[in-house]
């Protein structure tokens, strides 16, 4: 145990170009102000990408794996790792820099973050580019870059099975990319153990650009705590807030899949490329159906009492082992958004996407866009390489997925996302190219949910459903994703007080509700500073026209549509409340000073 409060105080830098690695001290001030995870990752990116417009796929970009202060402790659900990098997907409408893009951060569960901390680091920063496809082994202080050419093109499930034998030991925790990441599909994901993924924002593409197939980490150490007695008492309380509760059991029962039927009934689901909010066949792909027909095992991440992840088996034409799903996002993006209601087919698509290492959300969105363009005869079958991309077709969806991952034929363009596709296709297709800043929207539809529209419009990484529907939520989320704890247990009100006590006891810095939120506000503002520097302005916080023009035609929220004037007024108020210039969205000097962000 390092004996320091909450942190090791150092990160591991690995430069794949030179093959050298070294530890780097993190100033205590940065730990206090930016915490870990998303926040500390952002600070490192800000400090080290000094100039705007760095090409995300160049060796200069940083690929940052960040646990948080909770990581490495048996705190309930302290399983998360945040991958921070400069996005290969997003772009501003106008910029002085050809490679301008936002920051991106993608948060995954599992066991990787805690292991980074056991190995003695508060984070890993990968730069440069390996000469040939390689993998990285970190065993406490021992760091090795090894050739991975024999794994070239290997899908992630096969790799997950082969890699432990290559390493000679099952106790390593591993992350890896699939063919899509190797092929530099911008919305590629990074996979970790049984279908967990850092999916959004293209971290897998950046990893591919570095010629890095995988990372294995193992550690024998342990981070320390500032106040041992307080830690133990708060840990006891945190456990009893969740263990055996109806709340925890409901997660184990259905995970996020419960919302597939729930949100459809509420008219807030992405259906038919966001044309509708209700899917009449939602029950066929929902949690009850999956529990009945598919799921065999509930799976939990490190020290998590919720076990929201499921795996199972399907039968028939599309049958096989399913590592994960349907979850809400995957089930909707590949299900209702594509009008697919065949459960085994849906799960085949989900499994294939993980296997290839593609972001489920962006891919489902891209295919939905193409289905609509095909239906409207804006593209023909030749454009689609002969794929009959009709609504609801599982076979066509699977064929499209393979094309995208291989960047083959129509996949070359489709791999660039809906913004690029609609620019190419024209004919007014931008109206239903459902993206913000170049990142595709997720499984929450918004004609009947204006606050979620704010989240999509203003989130730092492009259209993110997780950012938060208002300022306090956004700030709390940015902070939570900096701690290493999962979002899902935090809906339990009884967890809040012990969670704050644990954070204080671990770090030695006193966090109450206000300080928690303030720290998140600082992190959110630094992200904004980064994006502003790249050239993102108010016109980039723009939702596609569909949401203001196409009222729902079915479901309980039939007729719902957003009002552009109201939405713009809400945005103006948002910038003012943020202390940003409502014209340009530039963060105001007073706000930055208040947050200690008057950097440089």
């Amino acid at each position, binding site marked *: 145990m390092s004996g320091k409060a909450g942190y090791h105080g150092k990160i591991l830098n690995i430069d794949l170009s030179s093959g050298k690695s070294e530890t780097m001290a993190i100033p205590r001030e940065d730990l206090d102000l930016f915490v870990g995870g998303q926040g500390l990752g952002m600070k490192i990116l800000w400090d080290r990408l000094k100039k705007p417009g760095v090409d995300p796929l160049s060796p200069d970009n940083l690929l940052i794996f960040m646990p948080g202060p909770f990581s490495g402790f048996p705190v309930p659900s302290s399983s998360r790792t945040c991958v921070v990098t400069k996005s290969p997907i997003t772009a501003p409408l106008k910029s002085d820099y050809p490679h301008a893009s936002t920051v991106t951060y993608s948060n995954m569960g599992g066991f990787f973050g805690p292991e980074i901390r056991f190995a003695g680091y508060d984070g890993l920063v990968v730069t440069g580019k390996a000469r040939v496809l390689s993998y990285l082994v970190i065993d406490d202080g021992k760091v090795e870059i090894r050739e991975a050419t024999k794994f070239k093109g290997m899908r992630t499930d096969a790799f997950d099975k082969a890699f432990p034998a290559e390493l000679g030991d*099952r106790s390593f925790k591993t992350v890896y990319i699939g063919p899509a990441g190797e092929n530099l599909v911008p919305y590629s994901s990074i996979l970790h153990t049984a279908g967990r993924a850092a999916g959004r924002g293209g971290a897998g593409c950046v990893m591919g650009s570095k010629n890095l197939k995988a990372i294995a980490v193992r550690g024998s*150490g342990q981070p320390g705590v500032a106040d041992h007695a307080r*830690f133990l008492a708060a840990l006891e309380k945190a456990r009893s807030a969740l263990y055996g509760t109806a709340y925890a059991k409901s997660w184990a029962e259905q995970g996020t899949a419960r919302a597939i039927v729930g949100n459809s009934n509420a008219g807030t689901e992405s259906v038919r490329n966001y044309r509708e909010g209700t899917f009449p066949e939602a029950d066929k792909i929902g949690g009850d159906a999956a529990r009945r027909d598919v799921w065999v095992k509930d799976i939990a991440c490190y*020290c998590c*009492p919720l076990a929201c992840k499921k795996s199972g088996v399907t039968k028939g034409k599309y049958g096989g082992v399913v590592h994960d799903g349907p979850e809400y996002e995957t089930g909707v993006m590949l299900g209702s958004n594509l009008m697919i209601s065949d459960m085994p087919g849906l799960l085949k698509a989900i499994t294939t996407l993980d296997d290839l290492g593609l972001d489920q959300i962006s891919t489902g969105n891209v295919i939905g866009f193409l289905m609509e363009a095909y239906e409207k005869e804006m593209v023909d079958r030749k454009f689609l390489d002969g794929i009959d991309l009709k609504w609801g077709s599982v076979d066509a969806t699977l064929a499209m997925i393979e094309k995208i991952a291989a960047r083959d034929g129509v996949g070359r363009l489709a791999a660039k996302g809906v913004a690029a596709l609609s620019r190419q296709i024209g004919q007014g297709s931008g109206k239903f190219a459902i993206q913000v800043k170049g990142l595709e929207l997720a499984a929450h539809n918004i004609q009947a949910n204006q606050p979620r529209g704010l989240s999509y419009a203003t989130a730092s990484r492009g259209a993110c459903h997780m950012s938060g529907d208002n300022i306090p939520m956004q700030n709390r989320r940015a902070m939570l994703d900096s701690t290493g704890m999962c979002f899902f247990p935090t809906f339990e009100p009884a967890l809040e007080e012990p969670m704050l006590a644990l954070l204080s006891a671990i770090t030695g810095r006193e966090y109450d509700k206000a300080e928690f939120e303030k720290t998140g506000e600082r992190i959110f503002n630094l992200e904004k500073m980064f994006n502003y520097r790249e050239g993102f302005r108010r016109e980039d916080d723009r939702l596609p026209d569909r949401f203001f023009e196409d009222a729902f035609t079915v479901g309980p929220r039939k007729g719902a549509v957003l009002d552009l004037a109201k939405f713009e007024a809400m945005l103006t108020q948002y910038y003012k409340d943020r202390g940003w210039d409502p014209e340009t969205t530039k963060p105001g000097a007073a706000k930055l000073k208040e947050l200690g962000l008057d950097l440089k």
Partner: protein
Amino acid sequence: MDEKESVPGEGMNLTRRDFLKGVGIGGGALVLFGQFGVHSAAWALSGEPALKMVLVDYAKCTGCRTCETACSSRNRPASVGGKEFPGLGNPRYANIRVHGFNPDVDVPVVCAMCADTPCVQACPVEPEPKTGRRALYRDPATRTIRNDVDRCLGCRSCAGACAAKRTGTITPNPETGKPERICTLCGGDPQCVKRCPFGAMSYSRSGVTGNSTASGLIK
């Protein structure tokens, strides 16, 4: 990867195929081994006095590894400058180990407290005349397996026997070769059982509910 290849490292000899056949979701029924079916039948048949031990229900295990953290926190707590910090410990040093497989199966492995103790049988140290103990012996009070570090040769025979015949729980210390990571039952208050969020473990009297043995898992 060759399906029959042994699981490398961590002193575990179960093969992938054993698991996939038995409990893997690819292989069918998850509950093949029954509820809490580890070794209790062997005890019931052995004529030994009843004992309480940690039993795992594989069907309930989610692979969260809370049990590992609870065990190391108690039995191998982190320390700074000689001062120990109970409640903090790297799960890698736990006496219980959760082995994860693909397809998704998680198998917590803990000392099965075998009635016939192949580990003790394998110990080459002459029994002490007074107690009859080799360097590895069964504690008469708790029935756990213990190591007399002063007499232990560090020959790794016990670890070899356990790995070949039973759970492979014994891990020799990399420097001294002396056996480590054998369940202590935490002085009668097993932390793994207490902390498992999913009730996948019990601290049970043997021979009550069991219907198969750990050796049934092994070739």
